């Protein structure tokens, strides 16, 4: 009985949060046109969010690519299917791994930074201070950060994918002795620009919006105490990760 009750309460809470997030998104979109008049703020956030995650994404991309190269080469050489290695690696990365892994890493690194920053500003009354100085904190603080994440995510994903492919190449060709031409040549015939690459880009755009939105949302409504901020930070990672995975399924179903 209590399990059912808990589920019902949990679902009600989920709906309420979903509603709150949607309303917040509408507020952000409403303030976006005027926030675009201050590109300096937005670029600053692209830097904070993107450039600071760059090293992490590049390292992750390199190792994911190397592992893919290793695993697939190992398996495929048993079936004499090495010529499929290049296309398989590219397709796996560009369609799924790139957007999803980048989004998850982003949630952990940049998402938490955004949430805790905004939460801290709330706790130290900086947001209220701005309100009192007749500066809209949505326009000055929230929207630029959202747009920063939105812009940075596809770029980070592209960098992740590119480095991962090079990592796979390094392992397969340089280490395992596969022929370089065999790696690159079959790709164009099997990878479609619109279906595969741009589909992946579209995913990363959606993920960027989701990750950015959830991070600024959690920060903005955090309880203005130290505990509240830390809880908001943790929730950001969890909620973003789950949303990314659910969105991934939905987008994959639509794109396929």
């Amino acid at each position, binding site marked *: 009985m209590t399990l059912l009750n808990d589920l019902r309460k949990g679902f009600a809470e989920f709906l309420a949060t979903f509603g709150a997030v949607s309303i917040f998104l509408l507020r952000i979109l409403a303030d976006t046109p005027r926030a675009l008049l201050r590109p300096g703020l937005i670029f600053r956030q692209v830097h904070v969010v993107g450039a600071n995650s760059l090293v992490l994404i590049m390292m992750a991309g390199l190792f994911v690519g190397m592992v893919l190269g290793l695993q697939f080469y190992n398996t495929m050489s048993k079936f004499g299917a090495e010529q499929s290695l290049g296309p398989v690696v590219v397709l796996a990365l560009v369609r799924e791994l790139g957007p999803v892994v980048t989004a998850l890493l982003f949630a952990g690194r940049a998402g938490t930074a955004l949430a805790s920053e905004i939460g801290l500003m709330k706790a130290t009354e900086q947001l*209220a*201070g701005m309100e009192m100085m007749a500066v809209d904190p949505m326009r000055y603080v929230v929207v630029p950060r959202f747009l920063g994440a939105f812009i940075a995510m596809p770029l980070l994903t592209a960098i992740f994918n590119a480095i991962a492919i090079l990592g796979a190449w390094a392992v397969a060709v340089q280490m395992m002795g596969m022929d370089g031409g065999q790696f690159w040549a079959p790709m164009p015939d099997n990878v479609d620009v619109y279906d595969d690459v741009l589909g992946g880009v579209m995913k990363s755009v959606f993920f960027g919006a989701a990750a950015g939105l959830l991070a600024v949302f959690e920060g903005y409504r955090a309880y203005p105490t130290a505990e509240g901020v830390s809880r908001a930070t943790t929730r950001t990672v969890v909620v973003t990760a789950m949303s990314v995975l659910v969105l991934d399924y939905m987008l994959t179903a639509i794109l396929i």
Partner: protein
Amino acid sequence: MADNDVLIEIRGLKYSRGSTVIFDGIDVDIRKGEVTAFMGPSGTGKTTLLRLITGQLRPDAGTIRVSGEEVAGLDRNALYDLRKRMGFLFQNGALLTDLSVFENVAFPLREHTRLPDPLIRDMVMMKLQAVGLRGTASMTPAELSGGMARRIALARAIVMDPEMIFYDEPFVGLDPISMGQIVRLIKRLNEALGLTSVVVSHDVAEISEVSDCIYLLAGGRVVARGSPQQLRESDSEWVRQFMEGLADGPVPFHYPAPEIRDDLLGEGKRA
């Protein structure tokens, strides 16, 4: 004193948070050019009053008029216009942590005006000079002490030359020297600029030094009102307890609880 026009007029203000009634119908007149103080025991909602006057909160009933305009009826743009004429000093300063001291004070100018950089620089430096902290211009808020941060926040609050300024617990947590500095600044700004000031505090000595008119709030109502001299001579129990810091009186020492005998013996019965 210049003309004693009422700048901020509050009538029948009621406000509750959840089931707690914070204000149960209060009337207040804040006169132009004067320093008006609100005192009372902790939790009487003094800060809430400031937030109601500045439009951060909406009253449940009653009116708040600033220069004749009803605050609660203003839309966002009109409210922002009103706030540009107000200065607000938060309890912890609320400086923006990612900007330098100079940029913090310059913030309202940069956001609301298109003044050229040299002019902004002069104005910022003048305000910093007024609070005695011109030398800290390139420091960051993290490097400032509490008292200094509060004075910088004060410089920021007056950088747009507002008509009125609100001080939210300006003396809390300061050493005596810093407290004296803030008191002096509040007095000087009021006298030199005719700046209508509203101070919320519970530091009786400092308030008495600085204010023209004191409102004593307790239990959601105004229990006393007058000049510091009048309150000192008052024979109301509330005023006596507050001004002299008595432990017990109209504000009880004991938080409501069952009779102590029942509490102790009841435990024994259960065991």
